[in-house]
């Protein structure tokens, strides 16, 4: 019985310090030091309405935008997830076929794989630089802008996420599309 009394006292102490104190400390720190990212890196219009988050993929399907990777959850920011399909699954082949058709990929001009494979969260905001360059022809035609301007746009914004530790360069889809609007 005494063991339970002691356990209850420990419960109160650990709840107070590790939940109350610790959370408050980190919360205050984050809101003071990095308020923008601490609240979800939101992107807003001039009138203050929220467009989305820099870090969260959103759906783009019209030809005049750069398109993100497929999302198994339909870009649901309040219910993220992956396809959880085996890489040998026929369902993935079917999705691959649809994406290939949407992008008009051919054997001569194959689609970069990240545009066919869904991410784990379904909210990956990035595509590879190759995947962005791949889409330039479509976006340029839809907007009537010269392709080399779009290429410069992509190359300026692409980055290696781990510096010298990663050789694959990636680029944020929302950032590209916001730049198109400007």
């Amino acid at each position, binding site marked *: 019985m005494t063991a339970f009394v002691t356990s209850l006292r420990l419960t109160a102490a650990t709840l107070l310090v*590790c939940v109350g104190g610790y959370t408050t400390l*980190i919360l205050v720190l984050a*809101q003071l030091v990095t308020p923008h990212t*601490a609240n979800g890196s939101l992107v807003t219009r001039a009138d203050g309405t929220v467009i*989305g988050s820099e870090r969260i993929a959103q759906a783009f399907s019209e030809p005049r935008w750069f398109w993100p990777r497929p999302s198994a959850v339909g870009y649901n920011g309040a219910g993220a997830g992956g396809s*959880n399909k085996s890489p040998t699954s026929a369902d993935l082949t079917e999705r691959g076929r649809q994406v290939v058709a949407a992008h008009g990929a051919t054997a001569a001009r194959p689609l970069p*794989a990240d545009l066919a494979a869904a991410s784990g969260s379904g909210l990956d905001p990035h595509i590879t630089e190759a995947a962005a360059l791949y889409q330039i022809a479509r976006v340029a035609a839809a907007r009537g802008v010269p392709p080399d301007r779009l290429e410069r746009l992509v190359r300026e914004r692409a980055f290696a996420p781990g510096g010298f530790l990663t050789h694959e360069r990636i680029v944020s889809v929302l950032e590209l599309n916001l730049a198109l609007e400007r």
Partner: protein
Amino acid sequence: MDAILLILLIVGGATALSWPLGRYLRWAMDPVSLDGPAARFDRLFRAIGGRTTGADQDWKRYCIALLAFNVVMFGVCFAVLALQQWLPLNPDGKEALEGSLIFNTTASFTSNTNLQHYSGEVSLSYCSQLAALMWLQFVSAATGIAALTAMARGLAGRPVLGNFFVDVQRATFLVLLPLAVVLATAMVCGGMPMTLQGAVKATTLEGVEQVIARGPLAAFLAIKQLGTNGGGFFGPNSTHPFENPSFFTNVLSTIAIVLLPMASVWMFGRIVGRMRHATVVFAVMMALLLAKLAGAVAWEQAPTQAFAALPIAQDIGNLEGKELRFGAAAGPLWAVATTCTSNGSVNCMHDSLNPLTGLVPLAGMWLNATFGGVGVGMINMFVYIVLAVFVAGMMVGRTPEYLQRRVEMREVKLAVLAMFAHALFILGGTALFACTPWGTGTLNNVGAHGFSEILYEFSSASANNGSGFEGLGDNTVPWNVATGLVMLLARYIPIVLPLAIAGSLAKRRATASSAGTLAVDTPTFGVMLLATILFLGALTFFPAAALGPIAEHLQFIK
């Protein structure tokens, strides 16, 4: 090349940090001198516990205290989850949870497993996430560290194992809390959200509405990684861009997964006073870790088989279920680290790993002692050590000894029982669910991969890991009850039995070491230990592996 550099950075960095941390753990958990700061902390912890904290405990009383505290942990968590719709800090109006899901989630976090049959941003309020789950991420991890400390004291020949109520506070307040503050601060600087505001409604550039869930991520993530907990704030865990925003948060998170399990080995060595023995054990664990890393990283470079016949350029390996910002090798690397230890967080979807890559996390959970869970990983390794000492003794015809104490029938029986329980929970559970609609009605993939989903779920529950082949529709009453029970039994049996072994060894008279003593601090013993682990693991689990990942590989991969 990228992969090798990344492995060097993460494994090397964690190893380098684990050494000073092991020294600190010894200072914090088992103070040598009872004056100075250690004594002041001790007085404080006894004051918090009250007069009932009591004196030092033998192994039985220590276990009773541990179980009593864990019962209270279970009760508090269950109550918070069950009442969440009426409690504060619920900006998104999360509603009541179903009964068996509450049981499963409570068992999961009390047992340091963090198996998730719910999806955080869909089902839980901030109060549930913080006061129930994050709280247990501190105190369940602390329970493991306390148990290892007690076991090490027994093996050092001390007649009493210390006081659980003091030990668990040392682990919480002196070890986990400061580390969590440091890591959470780093994560805040790395761009991780930390807010109590609810979800935000956005109107996208194409004019569609998108609801974006947020929350107190940085605080939650730090202790999730450090305490080998692994329960994600969001459903897809550390794949989520808020829960793992960049390459650098990913590197730090991966280091945090293995850091305390590594340091636990050094703490064990310091308390039993055998650093050379601890070095041999550490080397065996490291050999297993590196072997698994090599396999997983290599196999995951194979492209997605399902796209093979399509005009898709696959030059960075299998990308299904992976995020681009972590780099190509980060997924399999994390998958190995999180299952060698009993962490269970993920940064890619294990269900979508190539078949043989998926076998590596399974093997990690079957062995469950490649650094393992905080504290309990070294306890699991101790069970293997007892068996290795016994087998070696039989081979050369000598009475087996460990740390100058004779290992007799009782100890070997208890060790075998602990091993057997793990195998029974995994294979028995898988067999039951593979031949009933309880399991077969919940699969997301067909054929051998479907079998792997069931096998993975029980392996994860029994290893107190918590990761999953998440396609499995596991939020059903049979899954919730079965894995809930497995998690609880698989948590406390492998803590109580080794403590019983340590308790009985502690009472035995120390034998003088002689030329005939089996040395446990030589490379020879390391090889013996490694062989024991591999043979036991392979003999027990190979048939199941052959039916799942290996069958799928042979069937599909050309």
